[in-house]
């Protein structure tokens, strides 16, 4: 039986200032749209596409905060377009939408996030311990809920890369990208380090190749994470502690392990990471020079990191687990 299609009431207008352009440069363009109740920023972008700018580039998939595709900077703050309600933004003011700043522009709101996929390839994968006889009989590993919860927190990550975008180590220093994994991948390492089944030891790798020491615990990453993962407190600080243990006191590190298990050396762990062939094939020309939309006179508000507290080693009383 014919279903009724519901159309929403309209009340007032919203003005969107959206960055349009590509690697060669661009500018903010204003679009005025009728306001609609309950909308998120992505809804308005979609209405701009459907009416005035069919070619306005923007990534999205789920429109429910689950896939991490629609990352951008709204009024200068790294955010998900699909989870930012229009009615949470200052009423009556123009809404500025710009691409993530830390990654090269492809077009409009779409950036080249391949850096993240490259880092992912360099993390040694899970190397699970053998099953005990009891587990073979029971048909699966035994792990306590409390032990899996630590890593489960990090596995909530939707790979929106907003934390990578906001982290000043790469946001302001393109050259650091070759030797810095970034907060998303620090939590990946933390997840594996705390995984009840894992036997790899990634500490040396973290320090020497993934730049863990460059993080100075500003906590900006935690602040923007849409999954509310406590990136700094629960992952980075404990990792820093473990790395310190690795350098100075392997015995202390051993004592901190969740389960008794054999850890390999960093060199062995690194050798297990796939090194051959790209796991992600990039489109030709997909990697382009890093644009600076905020620096070219367009007046985009810049998200400023909280003043960096120069902490290199976490407080010793934090037990890291």
């Amino acid at each position: 039986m014919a279903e009724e299609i519901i159309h929403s009431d309209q009340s007032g207008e919203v003005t969107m200032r959206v960055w349009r352009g590509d690697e060669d440069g661009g500018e903010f363009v204003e679009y005025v749209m009728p306001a609609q109740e309950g909308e998120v920023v992505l809804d308005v972008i979609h209405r701009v596409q459907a009416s005035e700018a069919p070619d306005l580039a923007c990534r999205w998939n789920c429109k429910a905060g689950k896939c991490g595709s629609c990352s951008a900077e709204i009024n200068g703050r790294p955010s998900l377009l699909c989870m930012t309600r229009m009615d949470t933004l200052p009423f009556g003011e123009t809404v500025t939408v710009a691409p993530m700043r830390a990654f090269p522009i492809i077009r409009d709101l779409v950036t080249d996030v391949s850096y993240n996929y490259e880092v992912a390839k360099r993390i040694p994968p899970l190397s699970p311990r053998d099953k005990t006889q009891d587990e073979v009989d029971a048909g699966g590993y035994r792990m306590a809920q409390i032990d899996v919860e630590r890593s489960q927190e990090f596995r909530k990550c939707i790979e929106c890369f907003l934390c990578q975008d906001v982290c000043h180590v790469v946001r302001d220093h393109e050259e650091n990208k070759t030797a810095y994994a970034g907060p998303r991948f620090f939590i990946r390492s933390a997840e594996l380090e705390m995984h009840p089944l894992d036997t790899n030891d990634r500490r040396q790798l973290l320090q020497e190749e993934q730049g863990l020491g460059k993080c100075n615990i500003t906590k900006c990453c935690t602040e923007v994470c849409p999954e509310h993962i406590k990136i700094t407190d629960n992952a980075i600080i404990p990792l820093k502690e473990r790395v310190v243990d690795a350098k100075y006191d392997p015995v202390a590190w051993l004592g901190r392990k969740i389960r008794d298990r054999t850890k390999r050396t960093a060199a062995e762990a690194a050798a297990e990471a796939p090194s051959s062939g790209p796991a992600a094939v990039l489109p030709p020309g997909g990697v382009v020079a890093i644009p600076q939309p905020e620096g070219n006179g367009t007046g985009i508000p810049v998200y400023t990191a909280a003043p960096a507290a120069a902490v290199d080693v976490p407080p010793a009383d934090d037990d890291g687990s």
Partner: protein
Amino acid sequence: MTEYESHDFDVIIIGAGGAGLRAAVEAQAMGLRTAVVCKSLLGKAHTVMAEGGIAAAMGNVYPEDNWKVHFRDTMRGGKLLNNWRMAQLHAQEAPERVRELEAWGALFDRTEDGLILQRDFGGHRYARLAHVGDRTGLELIRTMQQKAVADGLEVFMELKVLRLLHDVDGTVSGLVGYWRPTGGFVVLKAKSVVLATGSVGKSWMYTSNSWESTGDGHAMALWAGADLIDMECVQFHPTGMVWPLSVRGILVTEGVRGDGGVLRNSDGERFMFDYVPDMFRDETADSEDEADKWYDDHTAGRRPPELLPRDEVARSINSEVKAGRGSPHGGVFLDIATRRTAEDIRRRLPSMYHQFKELAGVDITAEAMEVGPTCHYIMGGVRVDADTTAATVPGLFAAGEVAGGMHGANRLGGNSLSDLLVFGRRAGIGAAEFAEGRQGEISLDEGQIQEVIDAAVAPFEREGGENPYDVHQSLQETMQSLVGIIRNGSELEDALVKIEELEDRAANISLAGGTKYNPGWNLTTDLPAMLTVSKCTAMGALNRKESRGGQTRDDYPMADPEMGKVNFVERISDPSAAARGVGGTPSVRSITSQPEPVPVLPDELRALLEEAL
């Protein structure tokens, strides 16, 4: 002539959801040169949105559970239209596939004694869904993604496949597509191709599906000469969000009901007690008291009617709303707030809690949610051989939501994620073995490649034509209002006419702005598939003159035993000779639909269905 880049593989998998990644890992492990292609970035496929869990009869919570009970539940839920062999393999192999995920890093919620915890879902006799809170799909896809990366699999991200290519002898031998970031064209040659392209929901207005669910794989298979079955069987999930309008259709997991949530109408009544069909009467509670006992102990009472299969619940909600007992925005109330503690709700259903809080301003620990049916899943799809997943044209395989048969007329919750793993793996093996056995050089038809490319860029040469977003919206309105949850003959006939008109409009789209990351163009290239799939659904729905599972006709409200013996099969008998529709694809006018017998269930399995297990 347009330039394109080309690559050569043994096996190509189109789709990086659960099914595609599982297939790729298997084919690669067999030593074949394997690549995966996907329209979005890796890790973003629709599978990421799955919430409730993966169904597998592991027996961790109820040791009584086993594959036979799971098989029986699946067949009964599917109203016996299922390909029985798929349902059998699925029930038998799902537990092993879940354990394998765990060895690859997945961290499921645990039972008291440390095994994988399993939760209740509609239509499953025992608590059977392995899960991680309400973000199981994320766990599945991330585990598979990390496994794929660890294995060094090649992934072509943001590459939209337009068409399958075949060799002179008709064997599927590759594909042509374009990079979304650059607009550059690509040809991939392969000895076999696996379709794992997921769903079709974006042809409807209110859907739980992501933008990628445009039925590309369904359509590409049909255009390559393969059969589709059961396309009329579309699942409307009973509980989608209804307000605000901007989130209408977004899913509210069945886990809410599995964990104790109940449905109420505007009078506050648990109306599902009034809608228990005969087939499920013996196993369903007849009082609130009995139903409430069941949650803690499944032997103390029979199941609550809120956990009937999805088609039953969706239709009941529809009837309540029609009878004027709906919620303010045209749904009904889903109440967990009065049934579980706030802490329990936040722990068991964290993403539902956030979703309502952030998108609707509703605190589900304190108030009821407003919910209504949303287009969610297509049971129909590419007709495949159960054991190998081979489609009906050589060289082509299909797994996951794009394949048909496994779920019959209605899918049980949780049976999709397990389907992805079981048949994803089988597709990997099937395609790898086919590739290994394939002799001789592959030669692609240059004319066919150029035809596809020319058709794809044609809208840029047109001026003053249609806007693709308008055409898409008209299609969504047509499907929503005429091919929705309750159908009838005259509306379906109207729909068929409208879809043909829309094909003409789509053929007249004009575009500007170039091919580089241009969403208007991307949508334009998705439209031929959406139109094709919509036509198949409407044709099947018109032909199936009965109500069964995901097909409900108000002019034929009962199930007809004779119709239960056939699948409706859509095909294009000679795709190369067919009239051209949009983007150089065979016209929707060339699709036919006819009944063919459902595979006959062997006696020993039939006995399982009748046994009171």
